[in-house]
């Protein structure tokens, strides 16, 4: 099983996602991990049984563009990353504005 992580720049995520979309990949998941002063984001794409993982480090105070313009189904993962970790994502097509999860404390995984 392919677990190769491809490091990319957060600013290029739209371009990278578009390339994968044109190559026939579907979105499998998006995930955030907390690292000191930043977030490590992993976006997983699949084609048949192959997987590609785009990995990027996003400084805590920096925004990242939503990929919902390319993969509309990304809205659920991006809202999750925002609600649990506080990742700032701009232009999500369905933005719950912090209300996807009803958590007792704000951004509990931050």
């Amino acid at each position, binding site marked *: 099983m392919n677990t190769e992580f491809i490091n990319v720049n957060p600013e290029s995520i739209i371009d990278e996602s578009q390339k994968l979309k044109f190559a026939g990949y579907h979105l499998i998941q998006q995930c955030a991990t907390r690292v000191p002063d930043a977030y490590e984001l992993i976006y*997983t794409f699949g084609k048949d*049984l192959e997987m590609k993982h785009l990995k990027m480090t996003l400084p805590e105070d920096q925004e990242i563009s939503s990929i919902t313009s390319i993969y509309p189904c990304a809205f*659920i993962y991006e809202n999750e990353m925002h609600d649990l970790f506080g990742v700032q994502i701009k232009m999500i097509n369905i933005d719950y504005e912090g209300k996807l999860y009803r958590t007792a404390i704000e951004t509990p995984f931050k």
Partner: protein
Amino acid sequence: MSTRSVIPFGPQHPVLPEPIHLDLVMEDEKVVEAIPSIGFIHRGLEKLVDKKDFNEMVYVAERICGICSLGHGLGYSEAVEHIMDIDVPSRAKYLRTIWSELSRVHSHLLWLGLLADAFGFESLYMECWRLREEALDMFEASTGGRVIFSVMKVGGIRRDVSDEMLKDFYQRINKMEEQLNTIAKPFLNDMAVQTRLRGVGVLTAEQADALGCAGPFLRASGIARDIRSTGYCAYGDVDFEPIISTEGDSYARTECRIKEIFQAFDIIRQCIDKMPAGDIDVPVKGMPNGEYVMRIEQPRGEAIYYVKANGSKFIDRMRVRTPTFANLSGLVETLKGCDLADVPILVLTIDPCISCTER
């Protein structure tokens, strides 16, 4: 243009065993848009990596859900085993496969019962759940548990199954197959059932793929993507082909799941026939250091387990992407244009597991 109105569906609804909410934007009796809302029972189990070491996290993973319990323990354990480069003994792989397929049997029978109940066939519902009890009895006999099994561990499994018990399983599986043949007929042939399911909530192959759907929900649209084909556990040693249907409607999803139960019986029999002798676990030395993305085919579809470890006994991150989470986008698409009366059936046809989604 008709007046639009919004009807709240859930979080409490007779067809929903677990809470999910949909805002249904209606034009007369037709749904024009559905906006899902979850988070009513989010538990934050992934955060427990701060307090539980990498071995204890197997128990946490198992508690994500009461139906896919075994699969969650398996997916997490396999991810850690890949990081630590552990080669699990063959007997453990075969038993993991048998239990995974038994999980599929009991999950699909549970779903068939709920579907029968949703369209008013109460006797059929009870027949499905009675048959499901057989699978739970086999779990109880072999693992000691009926819901949470605690049989998985990093490096193998905790309990062996005797050859006598495996022979008994073989006989029980054959009997279950005979009974399922009877139960499946009304689902596949009854006119009333077909009226409720055929042509309802159609999702084309292109839509299902683009929306990142998973499991029988995806395969019913004609895409033969089954993660078991990657050959994890003992799936590389058994003969099977992904079950697909091409119609992409609610009937096709039902048909796929029924055929998958028969297929699960066949895989279990193959595993029992080929069961190797030997150990069921290997000693685990050291601490995990690295990251891995494991994917397995849960009854509801592809589940993803991401583990990142730092060389200490506490891992940095465990992330689980469950099939229901992936199928929410597909559900929203199938609801567009459907009648209000079909909404409960359509919500059911993705086989929603909110417990998994709200891990």
